[in-house]
């Protein structure tokens, strides 16, 4: 008798396939999409083996060293990054692209694990494009950053290392958000992320003014990155700034700024 009752106990509104079918027409319900990854994550479930602070033996050394910054001013947004990838004390590359184009009007920066940033921002780009197709209008920066934050939250404490700034132009003007793999998402007018961020903040905060001209703002961004690379061993290479203003070798910049 119980078996018979159980067969008809489930009401139609709670079937598993209903939840997956909702994706068909673009429902962004964070509650429904909160799912554990389907694959087994080895050994990371219990110990945060990528975090040097919690586990001194830190089995997986992720490339953390970087300086990225972005700030809003009257002419829009300046995004400036360095281009060094370090694995511990080894400099893996001096020419890493740390500004990732999510789509032609949305930018993301990379700080933390390079693979994590690249993968999740590609996924974000996919979702943003789907949003555009379904709703016939561009996604807002607020919504895009929220999508990214919601995508990585289920993997919290599982070893993702990503500190990214999502920025771009939408209906409400230029916007700048900071999203990281701990689940934080903040909105502000100026951010600097990475091991060299403290150095960059110093220069940035002392020179920052909303009324800067475009050239002055570019120069400020460039100078801040340079100063950070000067002091931070893990940052270096060249300054890459958005709208692809230019690629400035910090070695040469050193002579420009200090050799006077």
């Amino acid at each position: 008798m119980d078996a018979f009752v159980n067969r008809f106990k489930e009401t139609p509104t709670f079937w598993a396939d209903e939840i997956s079918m909702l994706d068909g027409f673009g429902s962004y319900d964070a509650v429904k999409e909160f799912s554990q990854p389907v694959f087994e994550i080895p050994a990371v479930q219990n110990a945060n083996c990528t975090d040097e602070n919690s586990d001194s033996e830190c089995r997986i050394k992720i490339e953390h060293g970087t300086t990225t910054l972005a700030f809003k001013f009257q002419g829009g947004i300046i995004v400036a990054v360095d281009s060094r990838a370090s694995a511990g004390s080894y400099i893996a590359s001096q020419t890493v692209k740390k500004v990732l184009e999510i789509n032609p009007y949305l930018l993301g920066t990379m700080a933390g694990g390079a693979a994590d940033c690249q993968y999740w921002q590609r996924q974000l780009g996919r979702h943003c494009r789907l949003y555009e197709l379904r709703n016939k209008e561009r996604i807002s920066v607020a919504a895009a950053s929220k999508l990214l934050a919601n995508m990585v939250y289920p993997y919290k404490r599982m070893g993702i290392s990503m500190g990214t700034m999502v920025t771009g132009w939408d209906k409400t003007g230029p916007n700048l958000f900071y999203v990281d793999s701990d689940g934080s998402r903040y909105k502000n007018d100026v951010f600097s992320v990475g091991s060299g961020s403290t150095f960059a903040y110093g220069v940035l905060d002392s020179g920052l003014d909303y009324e800067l001209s475009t050239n002055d703002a570019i120069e400020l961004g460039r100078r801040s990155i340079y100063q950070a690379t000067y002091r931070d061993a893990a940052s270096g290479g060249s300054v890459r700034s958005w709208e692809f203003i230019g690629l400035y070798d910090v070695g040469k910049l050193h002579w420009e700024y200090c050799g006077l």
Partner: protein
Amino acid sequence: MAGSYDRALTVFSPDGHLFQVEYALEAVRKGTCAVGVRGNDCVVLGVEKKSVLKLQDPRTVRKIVMLDDHVCMAFAGLNADARVLVNKARIECQSHRLTVEDPVTIEYITRYIAGVQQKYTQSGGVRPFGISTLIIGFDPNDKTPRLYQTDPSGIYSAWKANAIGRSSKTVREFLEKNYKEGLSKDETIKLTVKSLLEVVQTGAKNIEIALMTADSVIKNLEIEEVEAIVSEIEKEKEAEAEKKKKPTN
């Protein structure tokens, strides 16, 4: 797998009809009439209220519902099905606010409701919803009035004026004859009431009107206001009749 239905109830007939969906449309045709009219800067929903039984509390029988602060919906068909769909739509409105940090656009929520209605024509063990809906509202930061209709098959489209439910064909023909672009607020309300009067013989006490304007302000007209409009319309009709009766020299 025990506990889940796998056989679809809505299947194709040999000549390509989904009979369950068509029967659902029949159920809609038996429901009370609902009319929506889009004006220049406002949109009006009017519904036929079934006579309230003596012991029934009239305030608990509402056919115009709010899905969010800026979206309003009326339906025709099975009231219980409507309750379920309205509930889902309300949740989706809030969910959208949470994940996209913006209120829904009217087209989005209509697409969602139509999607749910379509899903129930293509799932195991369920029947289609027996309701058609009229959804009105203004998109956030937009002054364009919007009116959409969905039906049990999951089709949705935007309308300038439409009617669903009992005698919807008559009302729609009336609207086609009398609708003009750029109607003012009062003209829109008057047209809605006039078209409902084609169906509702008993007058103002069986008509409910809701008006929405660009600042997402929803006004449910009081019964006195509706009565005033009805008497105005009747006076105009009498004047027309008098003019026709007078012999033209």
